């Protein structure tokens, strides 16, 4: 499953809320439920939540340099996670740590345990982050823009690794990204977010082949893709304007000021999520055929 949207659309906040990682106050989950394995995570106390976090649901972040502790070695950080959730002695822990690093295809894992984050490259650091997240064999892995800070070739490597690990361990993954290309590589289902709301959900191929929401359609066509039948000087399709700030969300449909198809109704009335066949959901007043 992937969450797609532009910066400021609320992707990361959604993910952090699931893990209840937002500082409260100022942030407050005003309503809704988060059901995980039959329990509402919002009803749990801090201690119970800690049992879930890291052990059942783990998260990897966009920038591996700022999310690793620069004054601890890779080994020390990995061991911390393991000791926190499992009762193991020191020898076992070291062995498991090395195995974990091997699993994420880091060369010479024993040596890497003794190194500090600054001695590793961006790609290697992200591998370490993934190893830490996998330490307790979580049921869900939340990956918040895991490849955005990386070079294209390294991005391809990390995506492949995530895909293999998913197959191997059978865990679920929530991938947060702004890049529809990354989505097609890895996700089975997608939710497109705009201004704090999911505007369209569906199976990846289905959604990309026939977008129902004008925003989804805009996102797909504004991206140049390789090997497209390119004519010289042909312009990219653009979405005019920019994402509204959370303080000044437009009335009605949040996308209407930027939408090519907006009508009077869109300015005043908020469209509801409607279901179509094949698990598709979208929120737009217009019929999908008309856009």
């Amino acid at each position: 499953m992937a969450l797609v949207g532009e910066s400021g659309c609320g992707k990361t906040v959604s993910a952090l809320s699931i893990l209840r990682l937002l500082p409260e106050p100022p942030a407050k989950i005003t309503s809704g439920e988060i059901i995980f394995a039959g329990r509402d995570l919002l009803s749990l106390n801090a201690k119970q939540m800690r049992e879930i976090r890291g052990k059942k649901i783990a998260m990897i972040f966009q920038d591996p340099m700022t999310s690793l502790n620069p004054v601890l070695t890779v080994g020390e950080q990995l061991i911390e996670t393991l000791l926190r959730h499992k009762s193991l002695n020191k020898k076992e822990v070291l062995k498991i740590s090395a195995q974990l690093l091997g699993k994420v295809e880091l060369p010479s894992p024993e040596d890497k345990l003794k190194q500090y984050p600054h001695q590793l490259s961006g790609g290697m650091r992200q591998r370490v982050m993934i190893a830490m997240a996998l330490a307790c064999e979580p049921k869900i892995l939340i990956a918040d823009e895991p490849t955005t800070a990386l070079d294209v070739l390294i991005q391809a490597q990390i995506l492949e690794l995530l895909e293999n690990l998913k197959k191997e361990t059978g865990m679920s993954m929530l991938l947060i990204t702004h890049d529809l290309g990354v989505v097609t590589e890895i996700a089975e289902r997608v939710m497109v977010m705009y201004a704090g709301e999911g505007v369209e959900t569906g199976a990846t191929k289905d959604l990309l082949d026939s977008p129902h929401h004008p925003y989804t359609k805009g996102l797909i066509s504004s991206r140049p893709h390789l090997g497209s039948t390119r004519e010289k000087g042909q312009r990219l399709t653009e979405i005019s304007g920019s994402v509204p700030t959370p303080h000044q969300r437009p009335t009605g449909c949040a996308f209407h000021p930027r939408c090519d198809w907006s009508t009077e109704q869109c300015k005043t009335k908020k469209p509801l999520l409607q279901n179509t066949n094949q698990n598709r959901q979208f929120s737009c007043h217009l019929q999908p055929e008309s856009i």
Partner: protein
Amino acid sequence: MTDNHSFLEVKDLKKYFLPRKTIPGSNTTPVRAVDGISFTLKEGETLGLVGESGCGKSTAARTLLRLESPTSGSVHFKGKNLASLSEIELRNLRKEMQMIFQDPFSSINPRRKIGDVLREPFAIHGFKENVSEVVIGLLEQVGLSSDYVNRYSHEMSGGQLQRVGIARAIALNPTLVVADEPVSALDVSIQAQIINLMMDLREKLEIAFLFISHDMSIVEYFCDRVAVMYLGKIVEIASIEEIYKRPGHPYTEALINAVPGMESGQKKQKLKVRGDIPDPSNPPQGCSFHTRCPLKEKQCEEMEPTLKEIAPDHYVACFLKEK
């Protein structure tokens, strides 16, 4: 334009950075950021410069504009050797060569109004008349209303600021603009706007672009020719049509393959590249790509391939293509 010389001609340009002397006996091998690159650019043409971070593409751009002084090599712009020019001559020529930067938030002074930011190039080059009107005209050209003159950078979005960056670059009617990753800090929907704007301006003002990017899909869209850089060297240079159809260097092929595909279902046979880009102060012997190349042979570890023409105007530095 003087005869024989192209519009822009870069020959064997090198830029090494020496590490600061800290402790006696510490490592003093220079970082070879740009290690002998040569290319030409015609008037009004767009050349893409692609590669991963640390391959030297930004340094190459800064060195050819003489924002950094080159270690060796020459840059001829309109027949003039930039290295031989005096400060004043160079400043006069700077009018014609401008740059757009990656991060508009750090390249535009946050303490000055946008109008003042745009007035600065005119002040530096001694234009005094009608500057205010010209500035408003510039803003309109990049799709911003004249109200923006009195705004500060923090009041604007990244896309709007990048438009200001572009306005500043075209203020003095340059003939060459170097754009260093101009859209990589922007959101997808805004990227398309900025690319379209640059395409319009390029057509209208007949500007030659050196477009630096790591994104092969945008380069395919925007450029006429591409030079692929790896560890300070150009490993392949060819026209867009040629390079995407017949990539000659394994690195180029890997870069093209690594673009996450939008065409669902169609998974190609991918060339897999292992590991990271090596340390540029200690590049590998032989072909600098051999440590990551899936197709490497014995000679790649020993000898360094040079650029060879494998098809008209298609140059590749790889032994495998010489056979």
